[in-house]
Protein backbone atom coordinates (compact mmCIF):
# COMPACT_ATOMS: atom_id res chain seq x y z
CA UNK A 1 0.00 0.00 0.00
CA UNK A 2 1.85 3.14 1.16
CA UNK A 3 1.04 6.74 0.29
CA UNK A 4 -1.38 7.50 -2.55
CA UNK A 5 1.63 8.39 -4.71
CA UNK A 6 3.27 5.03 -3.93
CA UNK A 7 0.05 3.10 -4.60
CA UNK A 8 -0.60 4.81 -7.93
CA UNK A 9 2.99 4.75 -9.16
CA UNK A 10 3.39 1.08 -8.12
CA UNK A 11 0.54 0.17 -10.43
CA UNK A 12 1.94 2.42 -13.19
CA UNK A 13 5.40 0.82 -12.79
CA UNK A 14 3.96 -2.72 -12.60
CA UNK A 15 5.92 -3.40 -9.40
CA UNK A 16 5.88 -2.16 -5.80
CA UNK A 17 7.78 1.13 -5.59
CA UNK A 18 8.69 3.36 -2.67
CA UNK A 19 9.43 7.08 -2.30
CA UNK A 20 12.84 8.03 -3.65
CA UNK A 21 13.02 5.40 -6.39
CA UNK A 22 13.58 6.42 -10.00
CA UNK A 23 11.06 4.41 -12.04
CA UNK A 24 9.73 4.03 -15.56
CA UNK A 25 5.95 4.26 -15.62
CA UNK A 26 3.16 3.73 -18.12
CA UNK A 27 0.98 6.83 -18.56
CA UNK A 28 -2.76 6.21 -18.25
CA UNK A 29 -3.44 9.60 -19.84
CA UNK A 30 -1.27 12.26 -21.49
CA UNK A 31 -2.74 15.54 -22.64
CA UNK A 32 -1.49 18.70 -24.36
CA UNK A 33 -2.98 22.20 -24.38
CA UNK A 34 -2.86 24.48 -27.44
CA UNK A 35 0.05 26.57 -26.15
CA UNK A 36 2.31 23.49 -26.34
CA UNK A 37 0.82 21.34 -29.13
CA UNK A 38 2.94 23.00 -31.84
CA UNK A 39 6.14 22.16 -29.98
CA UNK A 40 5.03 18.57 -29.31
CA UNK A 41 4.22 18.02 -32.99
CA UNK A 42 7.57 19.61 -33.94
CA UNK A 43 9.46 17.27 -31.58
CA UNK A 44 7.63 14.17 -32.84
CA UNK A 45 8.40 15.07 -36.44
CA UNK A 46 12.08 15.71 -35.71
CA UNK A 47 12.31 12.41 -33.84
CA UNK A 48 10.86 10.62 -36.87
CA UNK A 49 7.80 9.37 -34.98
CA UNK A 50 4.99 8.61 -37.39
CA UNK A 51 2.69 6.51 -35.16
CA UNK A 52 1.83 7.19 -31.54
CA UNK A 53 2.01 4.44 -28.93
CA UNK A 54 -1.48 4.73 -27.45
CA UNK A 55 -3.64 7.40 -29.11
CA UNK A 56 -6.67 6.20 -27.12
CA UNK A 57 -5.00 7.60 -23.98
CA UNK A 58 -4.23 11.04 -25.43
CA UNK A 59 -6.03 14.34 -25.73
CA UNK A 60 -5.59 17.90 -27.03
CA UNK A 61 -7.27 20.92 -25.44
CA UNK A 62 -7.75 24.35 -26.99
CA UNK A 63 -7.86 26.51 -23.89
CA UNK A 64 -4.91 28.94 -23.66
CA UNK A 65 -5.75 30.99 -26.77
CA UNK A 66 -9.17 29.99 -28.02
CA UNK A 67 -10.69 31.50 -30.12
CA UNK A 68 -7.35 32.21 -31.80
CA UNK A 69 -6.06 35.74 -31.16
CA UNK A 70 -3.43 35.73 -33.94
CA UNK A 71 -2.94 34.13 -37.35
CA UNK A 72 -0.15 32.02 -35.84
CA UNK A 73 -2.51 30.70 -33.14
CA UNK A 74 -5.21 29.87 -35.68
CA UNK A 75 -2.63 28.01 -37.76
CA UNK A 76 -1.56 25.99 -34.71
CA UNK A 77 -5.19 25.11 -33.97
CA UNK A 78 -5.71 23.96 -37.57
CA UNK A 79 -2.54 21.85 -37.54
CA UNK A 80 -3.57 20.25 -34.23
CA UNK A 81 -6.97 19.27 -35.61
CA UNK A 82 -5.35 17.60 -38.64
CA UNK A 83 -2.83 15.81 -36.43
CA UNK A 84 -5.53 14.55 -34.04
CA UNK A 85 -7.50 13.10 -36.97
CA UNK A 86 -4.47 11.52 -38.66
CA UNK A 87 -3.28 9.90 -35.42
CA UNK A 88 -6.68 8.89 -34.07
CA UNK A 89 -6.15 10.86 -30.85
CA UNK A 90 -9.05 10.08 -28.53
CA UNK A 91 -9.99 13.59 -27.49
CA UNK A 92 -9.81 17.02 -29.07
CA UNK A 93 -11.62 19.63 -27.04
CA UNK A 94 -11.96 22.60 -29.34
CA UNK A 95 -12.52 26.35 -29.01
CA UNK A 96 -14.99 27.12 -26.23
CA UNK A 97 -15.00 23.68 -24.61
CA UNK A 98 -12.95 24.97 -21.68
CA UNK A 99 -9.82 24.35 -19.61
CA UNK A 100 -8.23 20.90 -19.79
CA UNK A 101 -8.15 20.22 -16.05
CA UNK A 102 -11.78 21.24 -15.61
CA UNK A 103 -12.92 19.04 -18.49
CA UNK A 104 -10.88 16.08 -17.26
CA UNK A 105 -12.65 16.01 -13.90
CA UNK A 106 -16.05 17.15 -15.17
CA UNK A 107 -16.27 14.46 -17.85
CA UNK A 108 -14.40 11.73 -15.99
CA UNK A 109 -11.49 11.61 -18.47
CA UNK A 110 -9.38 10.68 -15.44
CA UNK A 111 -10.30 8.40 -12.55
CA UNK A 112 -9.02 7.69 -9.07
CA UNK A 113 -5.84 5.63 -9.13
CA UNK A 114 -4.74 6.76 -12.58
CA UNK A 115 -1.49 8.42 -13.57
CA UNK A 116 -2.24 11.40 -15.80
CA UNK A 117 0.17 13.81 -17.47
CA UNK A 118 -0.52 17.08 -19.21
CA UNK A 119 1.92 19.62 -20.63
CA UNK A 120 0.67 22.12 -18.08
CA UNK A 121 1.82 22.67 -14.51
CA UNK A 122 -1.70 22.90 -13.07
CA UNK A 123 -2.31 19.22 -13.82
CA UNK A 124 -2.05 18.74 -10.05
CA UNK A 125 -5.74 19.78 -10.11
CA UNK A 126 -6.65 16.21 -11.10
CA UNK A 127 -5.68 14.99 -7.64
CA UNK A 128 -9.08 16.20 -6.44
CA UNK A 129 -10.41 13.13 -8.27
CA UNK A 130 -7.87 10.83 -6.58
CA UNK A 131 -5.65 10.78 -9.65
CA UNK A 132 -1.88 11.37 -9.70
CA UNK A 133 -1.80 14.31 -12.09
CA UNK A 134 1.40 16.15 -12.93
CA UNK A 135 2.85 18.48 -15.54
CA UNK A 136 5.41 17.67 -18.21
CA UNK A 137 7.41 19.77 -20.67
CA UNK A 138 6.88 19.45 -24.43
CA UNK A 139 9.86 17.17 -25.09
CA UNK A 140 8.91 14.62 -22.46
CA UNK A 141 5.27 14.83 -23.54
CA UNK A 142 6.37 13.97 -27.08
CA UNK A 143 8.31 11.04 -25.60
CA UNK A 144 5.18 9.78 -23.80
CA UNK A 145 3.13 10.15 -26.98
CA UNK A 146 5.80 8.18 -28.88
CA UNK A 147 6.40 5.42 -26.32
CA UNK A 148 3.63 5.49 -23.70
CA UNK A 149 6.35 5.60 -21.01
CA UNK A 150 8.32 8.15 -18.96
CA UNK A 151 10.80 8.25 -16.05
CA UNK A 152 9.73 9.63 -12.70
CA UNK A 153 11.07 9.81 -9.20
CA UNK A 154 8.52 8.49 -6.69
CA UNK A 155 7.90 11.48 -4.41
CA UNK A 156 7.79 11.60 -0.66
CA UNK A 157 4.50 12.93 0.70
CA UNK A 158 3.44 15.82 2.90
CA UNK A 159 0.21 15.10 4.72
CA UNK A 160 -1.86 18.23 5.28
CA UNK A 161 -4.66 17.62 7.77
CA UNK A 162 -7.45 20.16 7.43
CA UNK A 163 -9.65 20.45 10.51
CA UNK A 164 -12.97 22.17 11.13
CA UNK A 165 -15.01 24.32 8.79
CA UNK A 166 -14.38 27.55 6.92
CA UNK A 167 -16.26 30.59 8.18
CA UNK A 168 -18.89 32.11 5.86
CA UNK A 169 -17.29 34.24 3.15
CA UNK A 170 -14.14 32.11 2.92
CA UNK A 171 -13.32 29.31 0.50
CA UNK A 172 -10.62 26.90 -0.62
CA UNK A 173 -8.62 29.73 -2.19
CA UNK A 174 -8.12 31.23 1.25
CA UNK A 175 -6.79 27.83 2.38
CA UNK A 176 -4.31 27.77 -0.52
CA UNK A 177 -3.12 31.31 0.16
CA UNK A 178 -2.77 30.57 3.88
CA UNK A 179 -0.64 27.50 3.07
CA UNK A 180 1.52 29.61 0.73
CA UNK A 181 1.96 32.15 3.52
CA UNK A 182 2.93 29.45 6.02
CA UNK A 183 5.03 27.21 3.76
CA UNK A 184 6.27 29.38 0.87
CA UNK A 185 6.96 28.22 -2.67
CA UNK A 186 9.50 25.47 -1.93
CA UNK A 187 8.04 23.32 0.85
CA UNK A 188 6.54 20.76 -1.51
CA UNK A 189 9.12 20.74 -4.35
CA UNK A 190 9.67 17.13 -5.58
CA UNK A 191 6.95 16.05 -3.14
CA UNK A 192 3.32 14.97 -3.25
CA UNK A 193 0.69 16.43 -0.95
CA UNK A 194 -2.24 14.49 0.50
CA UNK A 195 -5.11 16.45 2.00
CA UNK A 196 -6.73 14.60 4.91
CA UNK A 197 -9.08 15.42 7.77
CA UNK A 198 -12.68 16.37 8.44
CA UNK A 199 -11.98 19.76 6.89
CA UNK A 200 -11.39 18.25 3.46
CA UNK A 201 -14.23 15.75 3.90
CA UNK A 202 -16.56 18.76 4.14
CA UNK A 203 -15.34 20.26 0.87
CA UNK A 204 -16.96 19.52 -2.49
CA UNK A 205 -15.15 18.54 -5.68
CA UNK A 206 -14.81 22.17 -6.83
CA UNK A 207 -13.07 23.27 -3.64
CA UNK A 208 -10.84 20.19 -3.74
CA UNK A 209 -9.81 21.09 -7.28
CA UNK A 210 -8.79 24.55 -6.07
CA UNK A 211 -6.72 23.00 -3.24
CA UNK A 212 -4.92 20.58 -5.55
CA UNK A 213 -4.53 23.20 -8.29
CA UNK A 214 -2.53 25.65 -6.20
CA UNK A 215 -0.41 22.88 -4.65
CA UNK A 216 1.90 23.42 -7.62
CA UNK A 217 2.49 26.95 -6.31
CA UNK A 218 3.86 25.23 -3.18
CA UNK A 219 6.15 23.34 -5.55
CA UNK A 220 4.26 20.03 -5.45
CA UNK A 221 4.64 17.34 -8.06
CA UNK A 222 1.11 16.12 -7.34
CA UNK A 223 -1.59 16.78 -4.77
CA UNK A 224 -4.36 14.37 -3.95
CA UNK A 225 -7.51 14.00 -1.90
CA UNK A 226 -7.99 10.32 -0.96
CA UNK A 227 -11.20 9.10 -2.62
CA UNK A 228 -14.19 9.28 -0.28
CA UNK A 229 -17.96 9.68 -0.43
CA UNK A 230 -17.66 13.00 -2.32
CA UNK A 231 -15.43 11.32 -4.92
CA UNK A 232 -17.85 8.40 -5.21
CA UNK A 233 -20.81 10.73 -5.68
CA UNK A 234 -18.94 12.71 -8.37
CA UNK A 235 -18.08 9.58 -10.37
CA UNK A 236 -21.45 7.89 -9.77
CA UNK A 237 -23.07 10.67 -11.82
CA UNK A 238 -20.65 9.78 -14.64
CA UNK A 239 -21.56 6.09 -14.37
CA UNK A 240 -18.23 5.14 -12.80
CA UNK A 241 -18.26 3.03 -9.62
CA UNK A 242 -15.49 2.55 -7.07
CA UNK A 243 -13.32 -0.50 -7.73
CA UNK A 244 -10.08 -1.97 -6.36
CA UNK A 245 -7.96 0.35 -8.52
CA UNK A 246 -9.01 3.35 -6.41
CA UNK A 247 -6.30 4.21 -3.86
CA UNK A 248 -7.07 4.23 -0.14
CA UNK A 249 -5.53 5.81 2.92
CA UNK A 250 -3.03 3.34 4.37
CA UNK A 251 -2.68 3.81 8.15
CA UNK A 252 0.88 2.47 7.85
CA UNK A 253 1.93 4.86 5.06
CA UNK A 254 5.06 6.88 5.79
CA UNK A 255 4.70 10.63 5.40
CA UNK A 256 7.73 12.89 5.26
CA UNK A 257 5.91 15.50 7.29
CA UNK A 258 2.41 16.11 8.68
CA UNK A 259 0.89 19.58 9.01
CA UNK A 260 -2.40 20.65 10.53
CA UNK A 261 -4.52 23.63 9.61
CA UNK A 262 -7.64 24.73 11.46
CA UNK A 263 -9.99 25.99 8.77
CA UNK A 264 -12.15 27.80 11.33
CA UNK A 265 -9.28 30.15 12.18
CA UNK A 266 -8.72 31.45 8.64
CA UNK A 267 -9.35 34.94 7.31
CA UNK A 268 -9.76 36.10 3.69
CA UNK A 269 -6.27 36.33 2.23
CA UNK A 270 -4.70 38.11 -0.70
CA UNK A 271 -1.41 37.36 -2.51
CA UNK A 272 0.61 39.95 -4.31
CA UNK A 273 1.70 41.77 -6.15
CA UNK A 274 4.47 39.94 -8.06
CA UNK A 275 4.85 36.83 -5.84
CA UNK A 276 2.39 34.07 -4.91
CA UNK A 277 3.83 33.74 -1.41
CA UNK A 278 3.55 37.45 -0.61
CA UNK A 279 0.33 36.71 1.26
CA UNK A 280 -1.49 38.83 3.83
CA UNK A 281 -4.91 38.90 5.46
CA UNK A 282 -6.91 41.23 3.26
CA UNK A 283 -7.49 43.68 6.11
CA UNK A 284 -3.73 44.24 6.42
CA UNK A 285 -3.14 45.17 2.78
CA UNK A 286 -2.99 48.75 1.60
CA UNK A 287 -3.94 48.42 -2.02
CA UNK A 288 -4.30 50.99 -4.74
CA UNK A 289 -7.40 51.45 -6.88
CA UNK A 290 -8.24 48.36 -8.98
CA UNK A 291 -8.57 48.61 -12.75
CA UNK A 292 -9.52 45.03 -13.62
CA UNK A 293 -11.22 42.20 -11.75
CA UNK A 294 -10.88 38.74 -13.26
CA UNK A 295 -13.04 35.76 -12.32
CA UNK A 296 -12.10 32.48 -13.96
CA UNK A 297 -9.19 30.00 -14.44
CA UNK A 298 -8.49 26.38 -13.52
CA UNK A 299 -8.09 27.63 -9.96
CA UNK A 300 -11.47 29.34 -9.53
CA UNK A 301 -13.63 29.37 -12.65
CA UNK A 302 -16.18 26.72 -11.67
CA UNK A 303 -19.95 27.10 -11.23
CA UNK A 304 -19.50 27.18 -7.44
CA UNK A 305 -17.13 30.15 -7.85
CA UNK A 306 -19.47 31.95 -10.23
CA UNK A 307 -22.38 31.47 -7.81
CA UNK A 308 -20.42 33.06 -4.96
CA UNK A 309 -19.46 36.05 -7.10
CA UNK A 310 -23.00 36.45 -8.47
CA UNK A 311 -24.48 36.58 -4.98
CA UNK A 312 -22.23 39.53 -4.22
CA UNK A 313 -22.81 41.26 -7.55
CA UNK A 314 -26.60 40.79 -7.56
CA UNK A 315 -28.29 44.19 -7.54
CA UNK A 316 -24.93 45.99 -7.55
CA UNK A 317 -22.77 47.69 -10.18
CA UNK A 318 -19.04 47.54 -10.76
CA UNK A 319 -17.09 50.47 -9.33
CA UNK A 320 -16.79 53.36 -11.81
CA UNK A 321 -13.82 52.90 -14.16
CA UNK A 322 -13.32 49.25 -13.19
CA UNK A 323 -13.82 46.41 -15.68
CA UNK A 324 -14.62 42.85 -14.64
CA UNK A 325 -14.06 39.84 -16.87
CA UNK A 326 -15.85 36.56 -16.18
CA UNK A 327 -14.45 33.48 -17.93
CA UNK A 328 -16.21 30.18 -17.14
CA UNK A 329 -13.78 27.28 -16.81
CA UNK A 330 -15.77 25.18 -19.27
CA UNK A 331 -18.75 25.11 -21.60
CA UNK A 332 -20.67 23.14 -18.96
CA UNK A 333 -19.93 25.83 -16.36
CA UNK A 334 -21.04 28.51 -18.82
CA UNK A 335 -24.29 26.66 -19.55
CA UNK A 336 -25.03 26.08 -15.87
CA UNK A 337 -24.42 29.76 -15.14
CA UNK A 338 -26.86 30.70 -17.90
CA UNK A 339 -29.53 28.32 -16.64
CA UNK A 340 -29.14 29.58 -13.07
CA UNK A 341 -29.49 33.19 -14.17
CA UNK A 342 -25.93 34.13 -13.17
CA UNK A 343 -25.05 35.52 -16.59
CA UNK A 344 -27.80 38.14 -16.30
CA UNK A 345 -26.44 39.17 -12.91
CA UNK A 346 -22.91 39.52 -14.31
CA UNK A 347 -24.04 41.47 -17.37
CA UNK A 348 -26.39 43.72 -15.35
CA UNK A 349 -23.51 44.52 -13.00
CA UNK A 350 -21.38 45.61 -15.98
CA UNK A 351 -19.14 42.53 -16.38
CA UNK A 352 -17.77 41.14 -19.64
CA UNK A 353 -18.34 37.40 -20.12
CA UNK A 354 -15.82 35.65 -22.41
CA UNK A 355 -15.40 32.27 -24.07
CA UNK A 356 -14.64 29.39 -21.69
CA UNK A 357 -10.93 28.68 -21.30
CA UNK A 358 -7.86 30.03 -19.53
CA UNK A 359 -8.85 33.58 -20.47
CA UNK A 360 -6.78 36.49 -19.21
CA UNK A 361 -4.72 34.43 -16.72
CA UNK A 362 -1.83 33.58 -19.05
CA UNK A 363 -1.69 37.08 -20.56
CA UNK A 364 -2.39 35.84 -24.07
CA UNK A 365 -5.85 37.28 -24.81
CA UNK A 366 -9.24 38.37 -23.44
CA UNK A 367 -8.16 41.08 -21.03
CA UNK A 368 -4.51 42.09 -20.81
CA UNK A 369 -3.25 44.66 -18.31
CA UNK A 370 -1.74 47.97 -19.38
CA UNK A 371 1.21 49.80 -17.82
CA UNK A 372 0.63 50.70 -14.20
CA UNK A 373 -2.71 48.89 -13.98
CA UNK A 374 -3.86 46.85 -10.99
CA UNK A 375 -5.79 43.60 -11.27
CA UNK A 376 -7.48 41.38 -8.72
CA UNK A 377 -7.68 37.84 -10.06
CA UNK A 378 -9.14 34.55 -8.93
CA UNK A 379 -6.21 32.85 -10.70
CA UNK A 380 -3.06 31.35 -9.28
CA UNK A 381 -0.10 33.36 -10.60
CA UNK A 382 0.98 36.96 -10.40
CA UNK A 383 4.55 37.28 -11.71
CA UNK A 384 5.37 40.62 -13.35
CA UNK A 385 4.09 40.53 -16.93
CA UNK A 386 1.93 37.44 -16.35
CA UNK A 387 -1.27 39.14 -17.54
CA UNK A 388 0.24 41.80 -19.79
CA UNK A 389 2.48 44.73 -18.88
CA UNK A 390 5.47 44.07 -16.60
CA UNK A 391 4.49 47.30 -14.86
CA UNK A 392 1.04 46.00 -13.92
CA UNK A 393 0.30 44.56 -10.47
CA UNK A 394 -1.73 41.38 -9.91
CA UNK A 395 -3.36 40.44 -6.61
CA UNK A 396 -4.75 36.92 -6.15
CA UNK A 397 -7.80 36.21 -4.00
CA UNK A 398 -10.97 34.14 -3.71
CA UNK A 399 -13.95 34.64 -6.05
CA UNK A 400 -15.82 36.32 -3.18
CA UNK A 401 -12.98 38.78 -2.61
CA UNK A 402 -12.68 39.44 -6.36
CA UNK A 403 -16.39 40.23 -6.62
CA UNK A 404 -16.49 42.36 -3.47
CA UNK A 405 -13.44 44.31 -4.66
CA UNK A 406 -15.01 44.81 -8.09
CA UNK A 407 -17.97 46.52 -6.42
CA UNK A 408 -15.92 48.89 -4.25
CA UNK A 409 -12.95 49.43 -6.57
CA UNK A 410 -10.47 48.52 -3.81
CA UNK A 411 -9.41 45.28 -2.15
CA UNK A 412 -12.41 44.42 0.00
CA UNK A 413 -13.16 41.79 2.62
CA UNK A 414 -16.23 40.03 1.20
CA UNK A 415 -17.66 39.65 4.71
CA UNK A 416 -18.26 43.40 4.78
CA UNK A 417 -20.78 43.17 1.94
CA UNK A 418 -24.23 41.71 2.69
CA UNK A 419 -25.56 39.14 2.15
CA UNK A 420 -23.02 37.11 4.07
CA UNK A 421 -22.07 34.04 2.09
CA UNK A 422 -22.60 30.46 3.02
CA UNK A 423 -19.36 28.52 3.17
CA UNK A 424 -18.67 27.18 -0.28
CA UNK A 425 -18.62 23.39 -0.28
Amino acid at each position, binding site marked *: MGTLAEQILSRAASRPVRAGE*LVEVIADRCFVPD*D*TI*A*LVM*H*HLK*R*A*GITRLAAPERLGIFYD*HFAPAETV*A*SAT*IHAAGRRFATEQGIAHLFDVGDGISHQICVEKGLVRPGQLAFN*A*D*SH*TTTLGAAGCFGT*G*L*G*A*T*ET*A*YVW*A*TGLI*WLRVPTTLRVILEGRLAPGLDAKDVCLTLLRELG*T*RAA*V*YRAIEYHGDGVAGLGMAARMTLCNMA*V*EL*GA*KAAMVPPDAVTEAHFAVLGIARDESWPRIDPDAEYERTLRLDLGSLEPMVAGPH*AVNRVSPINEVEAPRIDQAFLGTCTNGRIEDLRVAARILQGRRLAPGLRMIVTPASRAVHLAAMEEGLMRIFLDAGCVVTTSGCGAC*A*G*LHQGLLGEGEVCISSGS*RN*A*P*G*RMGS*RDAAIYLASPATVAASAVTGRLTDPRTLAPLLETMT
Partner: protein
Amino acid sequence: MILSGTAVVIGDEVNSDLLYPARHMGIPDPAMQATHALTGLGPEWPGRVATHRVLVAGWNLGGGSAREEAVTALQGAGVRLVVARSFSRLFFRNCINNGLAAVACEALPALDTGATLTADLAEGWLDCAGARFAVPALPDSLLEILRHGGLLAQLRAAA
Protein backbone atom coordinates in the same frame (compact mmCIF):
# COMPACT_ATOMS: atom_id res chain seq x y z
CA MET B 1 30.64 14.61 -17.42
CA ILE B 2 32.55 17.86 -16.74
CA LEU B 3 31.27 21.28 -17.83
CA SER B 4 32.83 24.68 -17.29
CA GLY B 5 32.32 28.33 -18.15
CA THR B 6 31.67 31.84 -16.97
CA ALA B 7 28.33 32.63 -15.39
CA VAL B 8 25.51 35.07 -15.69
CA VAL B 9 23.90 35.37 -12.24
CA ILE B 10 20.22 35.79 -11.39
CA GLY B 11 18.45 35.71 -8.02
CA ASP B 12 15.97 33.59 -6.06
CA GLU B 13 12.50 32.57 -7.24
CA VAL B 14 13.02 33.33 -10.91
CA ASN B 15 9.95 31.45 -12.19
CA SER B 16 9.07 30.36 -15.70
CA ASP B 17 6.91 33.43 -16.35
CA LEU B 18 10.09 35.49 -15.84
CA LEU B 19 12.38 33.06 -17.69
CA TYR B 20 10.15 32.94 -20.74
CA PRO B 21 6.87 34.92 -20.91
CA ALA B 22 3.95 32.84 -22.26
CA ARG B 23 3.27 35.18 -25.18
CA HIS B 24 6.45 33.94 -26.89
CA MET B 25 5.46 30.26 -26.78
CA GLY B 26 5.01 28.35 -30.03
CA ILE B 27 8.43 29.17 -31.53
CA PRO B 28 10.21 25.83 -32.10
CA ASP B 29 13.76 27.11 -32.81
CA PRO B 30 15.80 27.61 -29.59
CA ALA B 31 17.96 30.25 -31.32
CA MET B 32 14.79 32.29 -31.94
CA GLN B 33 13.51 31.58 -28.43
CA ALA B 34 16.80 32.99 -27.12
CA THR B 35 15.77 36.50 -28.16
CA HIS B 36 13.08 36.26 -25.42
CA ALA B 37 15.18 34.48 -22.75
CA LEU B 38 14.68 36.03 -19.29
CA THR B 39 12.71 38.95 -20.72
CA GLY B 40 10.32 38.67 -17.79
CA LEU B 41 13.18 40.28 -15.84
CA GLY B 42 13.64 43.02 -18.44
CA PRO B 43 14.50 43.53 -22.11
CA GLU B 44 18.26 43.67 -21.46
CA TRP B 45 18.53 40.04 -20.31
CA PRO B 46 18.84 38.16 -23.64
CA GLY B 47 22.03 40.16 -24.31
CA ARG B 48 23.40 39.44 -20.83
CA VAL B 49 22.81 35.69 -21.08
CA ALA B 50 24.30 35.38 -24.56
CA THR B 51 27.90 35.99 -23.46
CA HIS B 52 28.06 33.17 -20.86
CA ARG B 53 27.89 29.37 -20.90
CA VAL B 54 26.67 29.02 -17.31
CA LEU B 55 23.50 30.34 -15.63
CA VAL B 56 23.67 30.69 -11.85
CA ALA B 57 20.49 31.13 -9.83
CA GLY B 58 19.35 31.07 -6.22
CA TRP B 59 16.45 29.13 -4.73
CA ASN B 60 13.63 27.51 -6.69
CA LEU B 61 14.70 28.26 -10.25
CA GLY B 62 11.91 27.78 -12.79
CA GLY B 63 8.86 27.45 -10.56
CA GLY B 64 5.38 27.69 -12.05
CA SER B 65 4.63 26.84 -15.65
CA ALA B 66 5.67 23.60 -17.40
CA ARG B 67 6.83 25.47 -20.52
CA GLU B 68 10.15 24.01 -21.64
CA GLU B 69 11.09 27.18 -23.52
CA ALA B 70 12.24 28.38 -20.09
CA VAL B 71 15.06 25.85 -20.60
CA THR B 72 15.51 25.66 -24.36
CA ALA B 73 15.71 29.46 -24.77
CA LEU B 74 18.77 29.33 -22.47
CA GLN B 75 20.26 26.59 -24.66
CA GLY B 76 19.57 28.72 -27.71
CA ALA B 77 21.48 31.54 -26.02
CA GLY B 78 24.50 29.26 -25.55
CA VAL B 79 24.02 28.18 -21.92
CA ARG B 80 25.43 24.69 -21.33
CA LEU B 81 25.19 24.39 -17.53
CA VAL B 82 22.64 25.66 -15.00
CA VAL B 83 23.61 25.84 -11.33
CA ALA B 84 21.05 26.81 -8.69
CA ARG B 85 20.56 26.47 -4.96
CA SER B 86 17.41 24.53 -5.89
CA PHE B 87 15.15 23.86 -8.86
CA SER B 88 11.44 23.41 -9.38
CA ARG B 89 10.82 19.84 -10.49
CA LEU B 90 9.45 20.83 -13.90
CA PHE B 91 12.44 23.05 -14.70
CA PHE B 92 14.87 20.32 -13.63
CA ARG B 93 13.07 17.69 -15.72
CA ASN B 94 12.98 19.99 -18.72
CA CYS B 95 16.74 20.57 -18.36
CA ILE B 96 17.62 16.87 -18.30
CA ASN B 97 15.11 15.86 -20.96
CA ASN B 98 16.36 18.60 -23.30
CA GLY B 99 20.01 17.78 -22.64
CA LEU B 100 20.94 20.78 -20.49
CA ALA B 101 23.16 19.93 -17.51
CA ALA B 102 21.65 21.06 -14.21
CA VAL B 103 23.37 21.06 -10.82
CA ALA B 104 21.68 21.80 -7.49
CA CYS B 105 24.00 23.17 -4.79
CA GLU B 106 22.31 24.39 -1.61
CA ALA B 107 25.63 25.75 -0.30
CA LEU B 108 26.25 27.83 -3.43
CA PRO B 109 27.99 31.06 -2.36
CA ALA B 110 27.00 34.50 -3.66
CA LEU B 111 28.65 34.92 -7.07
CA ASP B 112 29.02 37.81 -9.48
CA THR B 113 28.38 37.63 -13.20
CA GLY B 114 31.61 36.59 -14.89
CA ALA B 115 32.61 34.05 -12.21
CA THR B 116 33.98 30.77 -13.54
CA LEU B 117 32.29 27.52 -12.51
CA THR B 118 33.16 23.89 -13.23
CA ALA B 119 30.94 20.92 -12.41
CA ASP B 120 31.19 17.15 -12.72
CA LEU B 121 27.68 15.72 -12.85
CA ALA B 122 28.78 12.08 -12.71
CA GLU B 123 31.12 12.45 -9.72
CA GLY B 124 29.05 15.13 -8.01
CA TRP B 125 31.19 18.19 -7.41
CA LEU B 126 31.14 21.87 -8.24
CA ASP B 127 34.13 24.25 -8.25
CA CYS B 128 33.55 27.98 -7.84
CA ALA B 129 34.88 30.94 -5.86
CA GLY B 130 38.06 28.99 -5.08
CA ALA B 131 36.24 26.15 -3.31
CA ARG B 132 34.88 22.70 -4.12
CA PHE B 133 31.30 21.81 -3.16
CA ALA B 134 29.80 18.34 -3.03
CA VAL B 135 26.58 18.15 -5.04
CA PRO B 136 24.20 15.23 -5.74
CA ALA B 137 25.62 13.10 -8.57
CA LEU B 138 23.12 12.42 -11.34
CA PRO B 139 21.89 8.82 -11.61
CA ASP B 140 23.29 6.91 -14.60
CA SER B 141 19.94 6.87 -16.39
CA LEU B 142 19.76 10.67 -16.36
CA LEU B 143 23.43 11.03 -17.34
CA GLU B 144 22.65 8.84 -20.36
CA ILE B 145 19.87 11.21 -21.39
CA LEU B 146 22.27 14.17 -21.09
CA ARG B 147 25.00 12.36 -23.07
CA HIS B 148 22.56 11.82 -25.92
CA GLY B 149 21.53 15.49 -25.85
CA GLY B 150 18.04 14.84 -24.52
CA LEU B 151 15.25 12.28 -24.23
CA LEU B 152 14.14 12.37 -27.87
CA ALA B 153 17.70 12.22 -29.18
CA GLN B 154 18.16 9.13 -27.00
CA LEU B 155 14.98 7.66 -28.46
CA ARG B 156 16.24 8.35 -32.02
CA ALA B 157 19.56 6.72 -31.22
CA ALA B 158 17.80 3.59 -29.93
CA ALA B 159 15.60 3.25 -33.04
